[in-house]
């Protein structure tokens, strides 16, 4: 007779809380007629904040737990990832308020979708089992598809959402196929068991289907992080979606997917390092090159940021390609800093009107705004210099650690490619600074040129916090470094 086994619930209150809050907001929205959009967002923020609070106080450094029959895990690595996801979600949710209202996207379903997507991402990173990983991935994926299509009577938005959905579903299919091959070979879906089965055999004896499965899984994850050659959807989706939605789709989910990528590569598949390294090196180099060159001619800001994101993910992949402790640390530092820069940049875009009153679209919409809004343009310039990796801003440290990891692993050519593409990429970041600072206001500005959207206190907080982190990171690099080091130590590398 099987012994009754009670799983340890102490790990999952944040997830439970997010699920319940999402349901609660849905209920209240359906049954209480006068639920304002802003209030639903505030509920969501409180839920995310409480989840973060619990997570931080419950975590003990250096500890590692497994629960639910080894399907869910928590250690310093996962802790760091979860904190990033929750913080990122809080930032993006908070800053989306004014422009969502501006675009008449005030349906109360928005917040529950964000919460469910966040819940999915938490599941993704804490999964210790391919099935849970898949469930989490789908949960965030489906929520994001709906979010992308929220503006449903707008043809361009529908197109973007459809593209996102079809390609996302395709990636899911690949992933599922990869998992099943993995299961066929190892007879298990649990990461630890998969790892031990692979480790038990010498690499030459491993079956070909295992490698095929590995490649399928990598391809699916490359889709999610929009690495070349699986990046095609990114520019269209970024451009098509309403800006606050883009800010959500492009930020936190990429971080979650990247963490999963890293975790799979260095935890169950570390033995296959020799096999997957060349693939990661390739997609890393290709992403950096495409991200740098394809963005040069872009005039649409969101398209430009999409290519920039592709390039930035290439740098993170460089950290994964190193496959050592330094690589893991650099990935975490890079993701943290990237998330802050990304959210900050979008917070700037979300506070301005362009040619149309809805918001900035074209680079021209930023022309000469340093004369109108010195602080806002200063902050945006800081983010641009940081994205270009110019010291003393935080983006430099992100690149420094990644290059350091690559050189420690002997990937000199990859580091050189990264260096050269960062010079190319700095051209378009500088172009945004140039438009704001070097160019005069247009002779005949459109009526809404350079005007602020209704500035809410939420967006100001997000903007100032992000800018402060980027500006003074060089004074206190140790906090993030220590967390990243602990995260790296948590993996059996």
């Amino acid at each position, binding site marked *: 007779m099987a012994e009754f086994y009670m799983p340890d619930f102490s790990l999952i209150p944040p997830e439970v809380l997010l699920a319940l809050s999402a349901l609660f907001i849905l209920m209240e929205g359906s049954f209480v007629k006068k639920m304002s959009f802003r209030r639903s967002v505030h509920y969501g923020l409180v839920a995310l904040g409480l989840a973060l609070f619990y997570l931080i106080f419950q975590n003990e450094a250096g500890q590692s737990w497994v629960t639910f029959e080894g399907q869910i895990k928590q250690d310093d690595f996962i802790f760091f990832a979860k904190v990033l996801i929750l913080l990122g979600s809080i930032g993006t949710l908070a800053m989306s308020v004014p422009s969502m209202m501006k675009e008449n996207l005030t349906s109360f379903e928005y917040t529950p979708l964000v919460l469910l997507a966040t819940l999915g991402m938490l599941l993704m990173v804490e999964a210790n089992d391919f099935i849970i990983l898949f469930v989490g991935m789908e949960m965030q994926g489906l929520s994001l598809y709906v979010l992308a299509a929220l503006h449903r009577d707008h043809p361009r938005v529908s197109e973007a959402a459809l593209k996102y959905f079809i390609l996302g579903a395709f990636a899911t299919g690949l992933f599922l196929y990869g998992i099943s091959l993995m299961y066929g070979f190892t007879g298990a879906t649990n990461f630890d068991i998969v790892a031990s089965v692979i480790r038990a055999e010498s690499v030459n004896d491993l079956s070909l289907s295992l490698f095929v499965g590995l490649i399928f899984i990598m391809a699916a994850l490359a889709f999610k992080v929009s690495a070349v050659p699986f990046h095609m959807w990114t520019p269209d989706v970024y451009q098509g979606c309403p800006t606050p939605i883009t800010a959500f789709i492009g930020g936190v989910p990429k971080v979650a997917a990247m963490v999963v990528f890293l975790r799979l590569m260095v935890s169950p598949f570390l033995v296959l390092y020799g096999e997957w390294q060349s693939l990661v090196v390739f997609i890393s180099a290709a992403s950096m090159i495409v991200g740098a060159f394809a963005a040069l001619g872009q005039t649409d800001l969101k398209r430009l940021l999409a290519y920039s994101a592709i390039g930035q993910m290439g740098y993170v992949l460089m950290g994964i390609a190193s496959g050592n402790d330094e690589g893991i640390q650099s990935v975490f530092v890079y993701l943290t800093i990237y998330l802050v820069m990304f959210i900050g940049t979008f917070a700037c875009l979300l506070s301005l009107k362009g040619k149309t009153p809805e918001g900035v679209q074209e680079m021209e919409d930023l022309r000469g705004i340093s004369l109108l809004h010195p602080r806002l343009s200063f902050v945006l310039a800081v983010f641009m210099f940081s994205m270009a990796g110019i010291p003393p801003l935080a983006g430099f440290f992100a690149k420094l650690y990644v290059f350091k990891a690559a050189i420690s692993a002997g990937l000199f050519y990859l580091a050189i490619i990264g260096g050269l593409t960062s010079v190319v990429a700095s051209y378009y970041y500088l172009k945004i600074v*140039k438009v704001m600072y070097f160019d005069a206001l247009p002779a005949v500005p459109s009526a809404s040129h350079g005007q602020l959207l209704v500035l809410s206190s939420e967006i100001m907080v997000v903007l100032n916090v992000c800018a402060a982190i980027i500006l003074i990171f060089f004074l206190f*690099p140790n906090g993030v470094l220590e967390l990243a080091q602990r995260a790296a130590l948590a993996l059996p590398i």
Partner: protein
Amino acid sequence: MLTSLPLLSITIFLPLLGAFAILLNWGNKQTSLAMNARWVALWTSLVTLGLAITLWWNFDASSSEFQLQDKFQWMPLLNMGYHVGLDGISLPLFLLSAFLIPLCVLVSWTSIQNKVPEYMVAFLVLETFLLGMFSALDFILFYLFFESVLIPMFLIIGIWGGSNRIYAAFKFFLYTLLGSILSLLAIIYIYFEVGSSSIPAALVTPFDPQIQTWLWLAFFASFAVKIPMWPLHTWLPDAHVEAPTAGSVILAGVLLKMGGYGFIRFSLSMFPEASSYFTPMVFTLSIIAIIYTSLVALAQKDMKKLIAYASVAHMGFVTLGIFTADAQGIQGAIMQMVSHGLVSAALFICVGVVYDRLHSREIADYGGIVHIMPRYAIFFMFFILASIGLPGTSGFVGEFLILLGAFQVNTWATLLAATGMVLGVAYALWLYRRVVFGQLSNPKLKELTDLDWREKIVFGPLAASVLIFGLYPMPVLILAEASVAKVIDQFNLALEVDGNLLVDSKKSLEVALLRKGQ
């Protein structure tokens, strides 16, 4: 005494404090805001200069060690620290930077009218980066300062520059970034070899000659763009021409010296084998720079462009001097860097003075201004002569020492470099003749006024220091002597050891002792 205070760090970061003070004023009335910003910037930079002179006072020139060091754990996990200190090679350039910034503020007093607070903030931030760059004793810190300089300089050229400023700003930024990113990779490699990013530790670490070649090339990419060497110099004329006067002053005065400093501190000291291997190449490029850019300067119609090309030629002398790896050559190179910092800064201010009045840099628009601006003509002539290297001016000391050093290594290079000096006389005097002498042909020139009190205050200290260092260069030479001797000893010893295939134990013990600094 003052040894308990981290005096060097205070000096480095004081300008940043001034920049903050200016930023705090944001939001008052426009005119008073601009005036406040100017005064804050001036006082901050003057106090910084005072502190820098105090540092000089506390500096012991007889020692080749790094002095006035400040150190604390910055990223202890990675063994990267905040570590600053000065030796005889960095102190002259450190002082030069601190000396030029107050002049830059004064030069821009009336000529900059829009976004004044931002302008002053950019210069003060730039000063912190420059001072930090010259005194950094940690590679990551050095690189941090080295590349941070790009941000304020990019903005200074792009916002307050001339008509083609955007092109120039981008070219400047991308060129220098491309060079320095390669040196970052080299720095990371060295970090793994040494086990920390400390520069003093790296200076005593012997590197495998095979790898030295690659590291040397990576650093060369960075410094050769910065200094700049032919054929990587093309960003310089554009940047100089389009930058506002103070921007050109700081570009020519200090930014170019970052390259020369890097060559002495890193290329020569850390990679002696590679340096000696590449010396013929550096000599060739230097000679081409001296002769070719002098010829190009002769053909210029724009005053600033002419001086910019002259700068490339003068920097050719510096690289020639550095890679002689000879006491006189390197001392001469340092002297030449200080002298060029003063003289080219003064020449750019000379152009700025007439540009502020006539808003033209075309040589053809001028002529005969000696009749209306006699005092200006005197100062201009003095600096032109100093640029030529007339005995009695600082320019002479530097070039003479470089030629002296080069003569012992390579007579042909010396001969060709001396030819370049003759060409230098030609373009400089011809420029002077066309601008200052002759008839007052352009009617607009009649309305020009002679120097006002502010411009005299700017020219006074520049002229005085050019003259003093010309007649009595010992302050600079004594400062640099011990440190340069150490660099050369290390260099020669490393080559000697390689020369003897059978390294006897006594010799390697000697090497080890010397590398530890006895």
